[in-house]
């Protein structure tokens, strides 16, 4: 009976016109909601499925943010452990599973870079931190290739690309970006919005 109930949800879910693309995006054989339900039951095979499906995208973010293979490997495990342990905290009505996972991964990665900066600072004082900031700037001025070639990213105007790169791959929060590069926070928000619209066009998400 329980299973029947679970199966009912996605089919109802898809009856709403705005959700008609849900099925299309969950390409593998099992739907996102089913996957979540199985994860809640602590089904290890479901975690493996989840890992196969999303680890690459998350690892791409984590690795670029922390810029260190060992730390990235460890973080990716931490992220999936967190997802495994806190799956009950995920609420499908509030957003997609990937969004939730991405938030966990991005926050963990940003926290990691912070704690490294802080430990550096506590060891050698404020000067090191200043150098760290300069490093961050230099890194940000490297060409897109260091991020990986993505046609979707390449077609964006420079200022939009900048915002997307820094928010997704360089561990900046919007307010940090605003402060460090003297861009009004509202501008950053709009640039990200316009960039996302471009990406939506590119990936034909309508």
């Amino acid at each position, binding site marked *: 009976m329980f299973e029947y109930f679970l199966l009912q949800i996605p089919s109802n879910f898809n009856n709403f016109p705005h959700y008609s693309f849900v099925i299309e995006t969950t390409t593998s054989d099992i739907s996102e909601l089913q996957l979540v339900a199985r994860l809640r039951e602590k089904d290890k095979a479901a975690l493996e499925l989840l890992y196969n499906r999303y680890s690459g995208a998350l690892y791409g973010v984590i690795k670029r943010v922390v810029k260190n293979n060992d730390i990235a490997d460890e973080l990716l495990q931490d992220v*999936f452990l967190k997802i495994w*342990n806190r799956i009950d905290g995920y609420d499908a009505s509030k957003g997609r599973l990937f969004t939730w996972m*991405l938030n966990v991964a991005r926050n963990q990665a940003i926290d990691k870079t912070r704690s490294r900066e802080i430990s550096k600072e506590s060891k050698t004082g404020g000067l090191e931190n200043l150098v760290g900031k300069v490093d961050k700037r230099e890194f940000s001025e490297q060409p897109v290739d260091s991020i990986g070639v993505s046609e979707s990213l390449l077609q964006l105007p420079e200022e939009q690309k900048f915002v997307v790169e820094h928010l997704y791959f360089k561990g900046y*929060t919007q307010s940090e970006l605003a402060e460090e590069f003297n861009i009004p926070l509202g501008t950053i928000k709009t640039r990200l*919005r316009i960039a996302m619209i471009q990406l939506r066009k590119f990936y034909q998400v*309508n």
Partner: protein
Amino acid sequence: MKTEEYISSGILEAYAIGELSPMEMAEVEKIISVNPELKAELLRIEIAQEKFLSELAVAPPAWVKDSLLKKIDQAAPKAKVISMPVRDSINIWKYSLAASFALMLMASFMAYYYRNKWIESENSLAELLAQNQRMASEYNTVNQRLDKIELDIKVVNNPDFKRTIMNGTANAPSSMAYVYWNETTKEVYLSIQNMKQLAQENQYQLWAIVDGKPVDAGVFDSNAAGLLKMKDMTGAAAFAVTIEPRGGKTSPTLETMQVIGNVVKG
């Protein structure tokens, strides 16, 4: 805020990337739950984000997955799911009947128990309310008495009030009363020290002797407590009290004089 304005502020993109404060997040979640247009927009953003990041995916080393799965095994030693042995359906019906019966008994008992509790609480609440009311009125009485006593003390302690001691006459040798009189403000207060009980139809009447003539200063009963405010008076040389019919008279019945005292000059 209008839907388009809300969308163009970029708050949904910030939500999708996990940039919002818990408060802002709660706000977005609330709004998307009631606005399907916003929900659909968020979904488009999320899907684009997902496709974009999938395109930029980097394969993690293979050992990471193995290590992860090992860690999960270590963290949670397999909680084996033991399936209930299947009994014949009659048994199940029996059990469920027994269970429902037990549940019903329990529910009835609970209903009875809590009803009694409820009545009990109703009663004690009514009792408490009544008690509270009584306390409040008692408090009021006490407060009024306290105010009166404070006023009395002010009069007694005020040096402007001259005290005249009226001692008992031959009619009532043990009677005694004081008059407190302020010459400037003309106020007169009477304090009964010892005056005998009068018949219902009679009352005491205070007189002031002004220019040799008795002037009415008001009537009082023998059981009055504390200071009694009497009529204002000027130029009194002495005070005296007579017994008169209830309500008093215009001139004193001198034979009934109970107490008298001269105002001390100075």
